[in-house]
């Protein structure tokens, strides 16, 4: 026992055990169970039997699942791109010497601090067919003569929930990029200024390359959060109208829990994994261009 405790390797393993146990119990096991359930016809309250790829074969031909996949990809791409540009823009502004800088930096976090369910309810009212504040204002200004059907028209509904997601997600991107901006040494900007670089050139050749590692991390997380979003949709539309805003996560829940088809719901959830892996790989290998960050060219 004494020798064991003096052995660095054994001790290291011992110290890692609690963390490993947590990972196995709370991550590996649920994920493994989810994968297994996806290959069964399990219902809530009934153990399933192995059905192989049947769930996936059905989902491939299921028009609602296909629509949910399209919605999820659109939602993720559109919201992530908007969040990135708005977040970067905000971060750059907040990195300047503005009056009330601290106040603005704190205020910008507000949408992120508010519980998602609450902000979703607020958006539900904002986009309401009868009580929308936006429609009310536009009507009062004489710009429209009837309320906008934000959530009743499939495309309006898609853009409305994307807008809600962007509003909620921008602070995370902005504050994280701001942290990244503050790690860039001012001497680099001074050197660039002495070399006669324009603001755009300073941004393109100094700011952006040095910010890329942070962008890679923040956008990976942002894409993951957006792709797996549930609360906003569930509160605002429940996937309607005509399933036009159903995401993979909301459809998975609808089929698995209220619908009782646990196996099929699990299959939808597992079908999200390859897309998430692709997003992570793109972020890491696509944005981690180390040579470019140091002024060179990536091969």
């Amino acid at each position, binding site marked *: 026992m004494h020798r064991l405790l003096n052995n660095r390797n054994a001790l290291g393993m011992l110290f890692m055990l609690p963390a490993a146990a947590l990972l196995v119990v709370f991550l590996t096991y649920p994920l493994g169970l989810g994968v297994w359930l996806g290959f069964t016809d399990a*219902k*809530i*309250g*009934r*153990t399933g039997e192995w059905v192989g790829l049947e769930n996936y074969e*059905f989902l491939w031909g*299921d*028009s*609602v699942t296909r629509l949910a996949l399209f919605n999820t990809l659109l939602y993720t791409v559109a919201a992530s791109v908007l969040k990135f540009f708005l977040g970067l823009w905000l971060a750059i502004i907040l990195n300047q010497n503005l009056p009330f800088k601290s106040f603005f930096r704190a205020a910008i976090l507000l949408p992120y601090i508010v519980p998602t369910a609450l902000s979703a309810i607020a958006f539900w009212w904002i*986009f*309401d*067919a*009868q*009580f929308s504040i936006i429609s009310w204002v536009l009507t009062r200004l004489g710009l429209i003569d*009837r*309320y906008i*059907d*934000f*959530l*009743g*028209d*499939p495309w309006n*509904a898609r853009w409305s929930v994307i807008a809600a997601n962007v509003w909620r997600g921008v602070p995370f991107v902005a504050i994280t990029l701001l942290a990244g901006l503050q790690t860039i040494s001012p001497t680099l900007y001074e050197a660039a200024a002495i070399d006669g670089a324009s603001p755009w050139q300073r941004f393109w050749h100094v700011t952006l390359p040095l910010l890329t590692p942070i962008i890679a991390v923040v956008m990976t997380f942002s894409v993951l959060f957006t792709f797996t979003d549930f609360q906003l949709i569930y509160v605002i*539309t*429940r*996937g*309607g*109208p*005509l*399933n036009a805003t159903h995401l993979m996560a909301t459809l998975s829940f*609808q*089929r698995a*829990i*209220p*619908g*009782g*088809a646990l196996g099929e719901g699990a299959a939808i959830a597992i079908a999200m994994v390859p897309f998430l892996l692709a997003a992570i790989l793109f972020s890491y290998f696509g944005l981690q261009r180390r040579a470019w960050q140091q002024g060179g060219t990536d091969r």
Partner: protein
Amino acid sequence: MGKMKRRDFLKVSAGITAGAAAGPMIWVKDAHAQWSNAPEKGAKLRVLRWSRFVQGDIDQYMKNVQAFSAKYGIEVRVDNEGWEDVRPKAAVAANTGAGPDIILSTHDDANMYPEKLVDVTDLANYLGKKYGGWYPVCEAYLRPNGKNWIGIPLGCAGNCLVYRESHVKAAGFSSFPRDTDGFLKLMKALKEKGTPGGFALGNATGDGNVWTHWLLWAFGGKLVDASNKVVINSPETIKALEYAKELYATFVPGTLSWLDPNNNKAFLDGQVSVTPNGISIYYAAKTSQDAKVKEMAADINHANMPIGPAGVPTELNLFFNQMIFKYSKYPKAAKEFIRFMMEQEQYGPWMQAAIGYVTHPLVAYEKNPIWTVDPKHTPYRDSMKIMRPIGYAGRMGYASAGAAADFIVVNMVAEAASGQRTPKEAAERAQKRAERYYKV
């Protein structure tokens, strides 16, 4: 459930009405119904039920629970969950063999795991005999094999058409139409007058499913036949969808996005003059602090859903059951609890406290004064009598529950009504989606 013609329905209704009229007589005779049961010593019970829709419900329910505990010395813990969350919890309890002794759930939950539930035939027979019998839909839900009861019905949250009397009159109608043709004419007239109606067509679990199933059945369409064969792609369904298209044109804009609370809000704001709902809109108006809304209560009235070409009422309402699980250590105490809560002394005051939100499953309770104290309550009295089960016309279980939860009928009606698909395309798509649940 067998097919019922208009004449048969009238006969049954007349019978039930006559029975109800002679209620006290039947009551005296059947008061001799025998019940003997000795709860286990030292029993403790856990009850999981859906959260109250109206405050009076839970207040009186808990008073009744306390009265039970005082009488039998049995401690009862009651947990509340949103009604849509009870279903998965009940299923998990059934599967794992651990959880509350009694669960009050909805629709076809008991049909998913009948083998896990305590047979309550003796209790159902006793209550049925004592209180004038159960309405037919109770047996459809909880006596699936026609012999054994797998749960005790608690009632349903009735849905009627809630309307503004002055608007209906202004549209040229002296009374509310009782058939689908007349109803469509009314809706068109209301639209022309600038006081349209509105029905939820979003993924609204309660309101969406309720009225779209009524519509489908009113025209003779159905998701499945008696052998659970999917038959929704039928000429009757297409007719229902063509009607839906005409009806949708009369709605206030935005109903494709409506979830369960939207129609309540729009009605109370005066933007909608007809909508299907429980009695809650009327009570919200009646008890409102806002003088304008309170004034509206006098103008609100209710009507049962119109009868279509099917010739009989085809309503769907949110059915409530009471299940005792076999894993319970105290099944006798659990039975005693349900019996106690269903007896006139407890159930009657509870109905009144729930202000008509819950419609009784036992015929004798038609006499409860809640249905006549205000004539506007009366249409809700018949909600159990005239409703069909959600899995109509087939057997209930995982397939019927899954199909309803996936909004197959709601989506079909919404697609056709809004013109996103033709009625034929919408019916074909619904057929394919439903076949998955009922596995061809």
